[in-house]
């Protein structure tokens, strides 16, 4: 493959504020190849894709399309260059028919033209037959299944004459059979000398489908390899092989009574399948796994937001029926949610109101607000958590991400919980605040809280956890001891459990 690549990224850089999402990525796509893009959560895959589709402009580096340097890509020129992207969640209009959706994507947009019904119909039929769809152009998109909608997306890409097709975890919601159909379609695209960028967490798919693979790690490309020359364990090593860049406070845990005991927890709405584990007082249980493995769903079930369908939750030996968050709060379970802007804090409300919101029963016993108590409580948490704010009366939305996170955490510490569930507590938080949060979490555990730490940041899981639970597809597949290697965690998360149990 020495021909001119149809798409090439050279030294692409992209930062969001202080976070460097891409730091010099090199990537080449040849016509007629399936090129897999592999990396952990947050390694920069999505950002790279967004640069390719024009959603983000790179800060530095060059993009070449078919050998020609393109200054930057915007969504319109991406289409002109023949770049099409098929997302995990198809972005079609559910109330329109397949034909209308195709027309919206493919026909030039101008308000003064007549609809050429016969051409429109013909094109829709040709495209659908090309992708081997067994539904007609008149079907309403909302009646199609997820894989069928993906087929429509692919039809759009074909209809637009795409030479570069990007597929972002296309098989995440597909059954085996549907996967096979998709694979044959991808192979057909390859035969028509379309270049396919294929993103997936499932290594076996990469071996089944891809010609070459590029591994991203921490926003940099680690290398491009021919797939047949690689082994699964070598790929995992490439994905995680890095030194821990950040010093984590040492653990003080030396055993304690079992605080939380979960047995065979099932939640159909959250996709949880018989999850069992325990957390001891003073222990930090890290929960690792890929995005969508069911970690947040587990937290929400424990907290009563999506109540369990079966299974047992015991707090200090007492069996609970966590029907709603209030039961959980009363039992001493606190949940600091992942999406702090939507769930963690009320942006429009003052810091003080946010801090006393969850523990309102404790601070205001008769349901009557006591401004002095509220001021003192808020002042206490602002000081002990080091929340940087103009004042306790400032709206939470005016704080930086890290400080909002501290408010969200303080709100739940105010309830004096026994069990603290932290969902991605340091996501989108700058390095300084991150270290601070880690020290706070350690301190809380040392005080006897049972902590469940959900994180997609592997070093954080490795550095903070006394034990590491790994989830995959709604199951808790294994609980590894603290100090396990990154490769062992990653292997379990990806579905390889046989190796590296030496720790």
């Amino acid at each position: 493959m020495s021909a001119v690549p149809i798409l090439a990224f050279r030294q692409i850089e992209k930062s969001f504020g202080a976070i460097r999402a891409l730091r010099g990525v090199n990537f080449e796509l040849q016509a007629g190849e399936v090129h897999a893009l592999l990396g952990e959560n947050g390694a920069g895959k999505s950002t790279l894709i967004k640069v390719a589709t024009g959603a983000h402009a790179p800060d530095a580096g060059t993009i070449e399309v078919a050998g020609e340097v393109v200054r930057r890509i915007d969504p319109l020129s991406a289409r002109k260059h023949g770049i099409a992207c098929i997302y995990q969640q198809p972005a079609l209009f559910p109330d329109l028919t397949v034909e209308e959706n195709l027309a919206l994507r493919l026909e030039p947009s101008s308000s003064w033209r007549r609809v050429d019904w016969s051409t429109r119909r013909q094109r829709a039929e040709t495209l659908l037959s090309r992708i081997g769809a067994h539904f007609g152009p008149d079907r309403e998109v909302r009646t199609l299944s997820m894989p069928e909608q993906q087929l429509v997306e692919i039809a759009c890409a074909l209809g637009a004459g795409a030479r570069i097709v990007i597929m972002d975890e296309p098989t995440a919601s597909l059954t085996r059979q549907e996967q096979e159909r998709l694979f044959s379609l991808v192979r057909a695209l390859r035969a028509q000398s379309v270049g396919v960028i294929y993103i997936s967490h499932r290594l076996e798919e990469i071996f089944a489908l891809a010609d070459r693979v590029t591994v991203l790690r921490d926003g940099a490309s680690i290398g491009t390899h021919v797939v047949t020359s690689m082994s699964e364990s070598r790929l995992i090593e490439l994905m995680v092989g890095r030194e821990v860049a950040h010093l984590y406070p040492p653990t003080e845990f030396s055993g304690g009574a079992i605080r939380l005991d979960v047995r065979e927890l099932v939640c159909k709405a959250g996709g949880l399948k018989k999850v069992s584990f325990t957390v001891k007082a003073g222990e930090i249980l890290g929960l690792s796994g890929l995005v969508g493995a069911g970690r947040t769903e587990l937290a929400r079930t424990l907290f009563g937001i999506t109540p369990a369908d079966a299974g047992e939750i015991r707090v200090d030996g007492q069996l609970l029926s966590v029907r709603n968050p209030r039961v959980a709060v009363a039992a001493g379970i606190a949940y600091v949610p992942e999406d702090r802007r939507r769930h963690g804090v009320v942006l429009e409300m003052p810091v003080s109101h946010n801090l006393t919101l969850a523990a309102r029963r404790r601070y205001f016993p008769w349901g009557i607000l006591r401004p002095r108590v509220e001021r003192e409580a808020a002042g206490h948490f602002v000081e002990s958590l080091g929340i940087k704010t103009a004042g306790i009366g400032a709206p939470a939305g005016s704080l930086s991400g890290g400080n909002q996170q501290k408010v969200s955490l303080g709100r739940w510490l105010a309830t004096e919980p026994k069990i603290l569930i932290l969902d991605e507590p340091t996501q989108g938080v700058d390095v300084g605040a991150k270290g601070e949060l880690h020290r706070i979490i350690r301190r809380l555990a040392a005080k006897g809280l049972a902590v469940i730490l959900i994180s997609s940041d592997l070093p954080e899981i490795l550095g903070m956890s006394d034990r590491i639970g790994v989830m995959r597809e709604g199951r808790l597949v294994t609980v590894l001891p603290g100090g396990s290697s990154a490769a062992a965690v990653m292997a379990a998360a990806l579905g390889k459990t046989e190796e590296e149990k030496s720790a």
Partner: protein
Amino acid sequence: MKTPDAAGIAPKQMPTPHRASAFWKSVLFRHETLLLAVLIVEWWFFYTYGTTTNRRGVVVGFGTWDRQFDILRHSCEIGLLALALTPIILTGGIDLSVGSLLGLCAVVFGHLSQAAGLSLPVATLLTLGLGALAGGLNAGLITGFRLPPLIVTLGTYSLFRGLAEALTRGAVTYTDFSPSFLFFGQERWLGLPVQAWMFLGVAVMIWFLVHSTTAGRSFRVIGFSPEGARFAGIASNRQLGLVYVLAGIIAALAAMIYTARLGQAKADAGTGYELFAITAVVLGGTSIFGGKGSVTGTLLGVAAIAVLKNGLATLPSVIRMNAAEEMAGLLTGCLLIFVLTATTLSGSVLARVRRWTLRARQTGASLP
């Protein structure tokens, strides 16, 4: 990603010595202050130009005590509905059915105390119970079936009025209420119209609920972020139930005061009151999207509308044209638009001034 940084830095540069001026700025630019100014201007205008004939046929001005009591008496029912709507709108909801419920409660009360011959306390309790039940129906449909409040109460808006019409076959009017009942709508007690005392009582209660209880705080959280309320462990359904049932009870109270004031109960009682009440609440600065607002604002909003409506009827030119109602509607609309644009405008002007001063301070600070 840059905004949180900027926001994190900006508050630190707010200088403490300027606290006092900041306080005055916040008072000056408050919605309530603007409304109070509007109210004073209205009153002064009618005081200067309004004339009216008193009971003895003498021409007197707008500034008589009788006139003020008249305003108070006429604004009690809509005022009560506005008070009932304030917590609802704070949760991001709406209740269009309060006016119709007033009509239904009025005829039911009339029927119970006249046709059925029940004693006044029993009829009162039953009517209040009906109000609670009707509010409970709204709440049940909204929380139980997750239907939007606008749709649910649009439905009960027709339902309650239809029931009132059906009960009276559109023809029966209950009159001949006992003087002991009419006392509540037509007499004075301790110098004020009797219903004004009730209105005051409800106002204090709603004020306390909204501003001084955790329930009131929860209404705002639900209004700002229904999802966030769930994650904070707030029993949203219970809180919503509370505000709608409370609205039903207050509408029933308003119905009885209405009946006592006019001495009659008809099925069309309170027609269109819900819109006046909503206007008053929104005029008072409560956000129709929920979260923001105050009971003081609602009271000022009610007063601004009441004075305008009543005052127009004292202007000779308006009296000559016989167009007080129409003028009142027209000017209320203008007032609402004026006050709301003025507030957002002053808000954005304030933000711009703040940005300028901040920038000036930053560049000033960077210089040695």
